């Protein structure tokens, strides 16, 4: 995900809320009136399919940074104004995720940048013009609409004070000031179109240190740093009164913002989006971003007041979902993700364990593979899921399922193979069939261990599922991801606290389950 330099933006801001009060969508939808009965099911089916196709909402996505959310919100509101039904699936964890979601049809449009497309998707050397870009994007089935009017490229920022003290206006002015201290985000230091290229082009004598982007501005204000990298439309530039130096040698490539849409999107939708063409210049965008991060207004509010001023939307009631509604929806999604994954892992994990536990070699094999899966960092496993299962809830559930397999299979196998050999011998000698041995003796005896395994899987899954928001699965990770992007602690807590409570709840539930299912004297002798 580090390929998306924009996802590194960190700025504090307001909680994100969707714009509610969707207008009754009228014009484009006409349900078939009373279909004559003679036309039977088939016609009815066709009609409802067509109706379904027509009523399918247009899904607008975004990546996880302020400007992305804000532009997505504008796109959504403009469409809603024209009677389209819109669903928002914002906060996709990076360029590759968002692009993949678009390509696979999970979303219909999201805001993207020319430079990002050229570099991260097309892996082109140098810059590509709009036509060239669209020609190369055609095979993916996506299309870049006309630009929104601003260029969110890299910029070099200094404090207003530093600028006036040294008379700094252009980047080339820096060459004569070797005493200035440079600190750049880690990605900027690594990218060819970042510090290495910049240093070479402008012949800069300074060395640079690496610093978290979110901390760089503070370091600048504290006087620990003099020069850092920024994005040219970053609202924080206004907030901290920073000066942007002119790229007088034209080193930085263009990152022109535009809606990226599915090529097969209905022409009237594309036309509706063109209302946003050339609507924003760098300064306007910077000011709007600042409204979110500094004034702590929601994306929906900022987008609406801007579009109102432009005459692109009419005043309507915007009823943002309440905190509790959002919380409830996220919690339900979260529970759904983990419940499906853990239940599936129970079936497969226990099934596998029962199949293999009698063979030490097979048991070792199963545990080895499950253990191997466990060592893949969760965010990497989620990312690996994208080419296999796309984005959204399915890959998230698959990933959580894979993680849950190990504790469940391991505990079941361990419990089964450590059953007292004498008990095993007697059970066989009394004439219990294999099924009866398992059902009446081995599984009940293994139950405390198995429950402990499921409990671990459930608790871990509830935690890991918060990462699933990065691939568009929603859930309690959604406010966390947005909160991280906005450096908004209260938003992060809206995901983190319920997730922690869910985990505690799961612990309690399994405790009760164990108390119900397992005789007490067996609980005490089983180690977790």
């Amino acid at each position, binding site marked *: 995900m580090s390929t998306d330099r924009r996802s590194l933006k960190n700025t504090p801001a307001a909680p994100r809320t969707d714009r509610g009060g969707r207008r009754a969508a009228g014009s484009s939808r006409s349900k078939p009136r009373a279909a004559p009965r003679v036309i039977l099911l088939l016609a009815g089916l066709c009609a409802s399919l067509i109706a379904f196709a027509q009523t399918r909402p247009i899904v607008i996505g975004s990546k996880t940074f302020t400007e992305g959310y804000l532009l997505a919100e504008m796109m959504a509101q403009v469409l809603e104004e024209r009677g389209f039904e819109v669903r928002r699936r914002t906060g996709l964890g990076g360029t590759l995720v968002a692009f993949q979601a678009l390509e696979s049809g999970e979303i219909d449009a999201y805001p993207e940048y020319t430079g990002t497309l050229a570099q991260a998707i097309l892996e082109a050397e140098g810059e590509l013009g709009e036509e060239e870009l669209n020609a190369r994007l055609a095979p993916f089935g996506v299309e870049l609409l006309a630009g929104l009017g601003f260029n969110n490229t890299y910029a070099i920022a200094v404090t207003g004070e530093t600028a006036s003290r040294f008379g700094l206006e252009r980047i080339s002015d820096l060459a004569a000031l070797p005493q200035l201290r440079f600190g750049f985000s880690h990605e900027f230091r690594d990218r060819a179109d970042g510090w290495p290229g910049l240093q070479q082009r402008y012949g800069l004598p300074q060395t640079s240190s690496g610093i978290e982007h979110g901390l760089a501005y503070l370091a600048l204000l504290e006087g620990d740093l003099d020069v850092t990298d920024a994005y040219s439309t970053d609202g924080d530039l206004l907030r901290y009164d920073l000066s942007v130096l002119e790229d007088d040698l034209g080193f930085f490539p263009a990152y022109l913002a535009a809606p990226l849409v599915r090529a097969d999107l209905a022409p009237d939708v594309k036309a509706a989006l063109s209302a946003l063409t050339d609507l924003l210049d760098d300064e306007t965008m910077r000011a709007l971003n600042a409204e979110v991060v500094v004034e702590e207004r929601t994306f929906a509010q900022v987008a609406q007041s801007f579009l109102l001023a432009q005459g692109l939307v009419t005043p309507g009631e915007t009823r943002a979902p309440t905190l509790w509604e959002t919380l409830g929806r996220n919690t339900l999604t979260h529970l759904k993700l983990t419940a499906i994954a853990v239940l599936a892992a129970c079936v497969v994990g226990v099934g596998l364990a029962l199949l293999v536990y009698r063979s030490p070699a097979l048991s070792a094999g199963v545990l080895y593979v499950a253990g191997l899966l466990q060592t893949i960092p969760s965010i990497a496993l989620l990312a690996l899921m994208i080419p296999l299962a796309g984005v959204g809830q399915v890959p998230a559930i698959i990933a959580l399922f894979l993680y849950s397999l190990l504790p469940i299979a391991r505990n079941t196998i361990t419990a089964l193979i450590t059953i*007292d050999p*004498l*008990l095993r*011998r*007697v*059970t*066989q*000698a*009394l*004439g*219990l*069939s294999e099924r*009866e041995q398992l059902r*009446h*003796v081995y599984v*009940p*005896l293994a139950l405390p261990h198995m429950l402990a395994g499921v409990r671990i899987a459930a608790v871990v899954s509830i935690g890991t599922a918060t990462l699933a928001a990065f691939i568009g699965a929603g859930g309690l990770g959604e406010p966390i991801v947005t909160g991280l992007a906005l450096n908004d602690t209260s938003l992060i807590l809206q995901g983190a606290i319920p997730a922690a409570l869910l985990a505690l709840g799961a612990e309690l539930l399994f405790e009760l389950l164990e108390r119900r299912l*397992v*005789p007490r*004297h*067996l609980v005490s002798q089983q180690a977790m």
Partner: protein
Amino acid sequence: MGGIIEFRHLAKSYGQTEVFRNLDLDISPGVTTGLVGESGCGKSTLLQLINGLERPDRGTVRTFGEPVPVTGLASFRRRIGYAVQGTGLFPHMSVARNISLLGELEGWSDARIRARTGTLMELMALDGELTSRYPHELSGGQQQRVGICRAMYLQPDILLLDEPFSGVDPLTRADIHEQFLKLMGSESTTVVLVTHDMSEAVELADEIIVIRDGEIVRQGPVERIRQSSDAYVARLFGQGRAS
């Protein structure tokens, strides 16, 4: 001569250790046979060859006149009760369910299960209050009685007992012996009792087979063995008293 259980040319080894080289042995139906010998003489292995827990390397084992089956072992074993030192009671089941599990699996009615469980517990002098207890709440002697009840539940044609009365104090053991004899008086079962204690065998068995290093050294009715002047038999008597 034929038996309800027959071993012919039996050979069995565990790794390098040869337990039996070429054993022929018949167990008579309807009586209690004591297999007596020191630990490691192979007597427990003989029991497990009868119900198919172990298989011979060479030779045959016939039970009920047929070779021990390879498939359908579960229904075969339900005709053969099995109780063992250490009892192997199911720790997660109540006393009543430990005893009656096989009846439940056979699909018996609740009434029949209650009746059979009651009869057996009474014969083995187990208090009715114990039915809902778990095995770990019982004394060693009570656990052994439960083990016997469980083994006898389906009125098996053969009952295999592997030192089921050892490990309790002599007084308790005497009580259990008495109850066991009472139980055998009311059920007609072929019993094979493995023990290292000759006096126990003499008390409970009709016939005795003395085994030493995988070979039969003495075989016959109890009286004849008791009067034997064999030094090894005398030693087994002595050991029983010592333990």
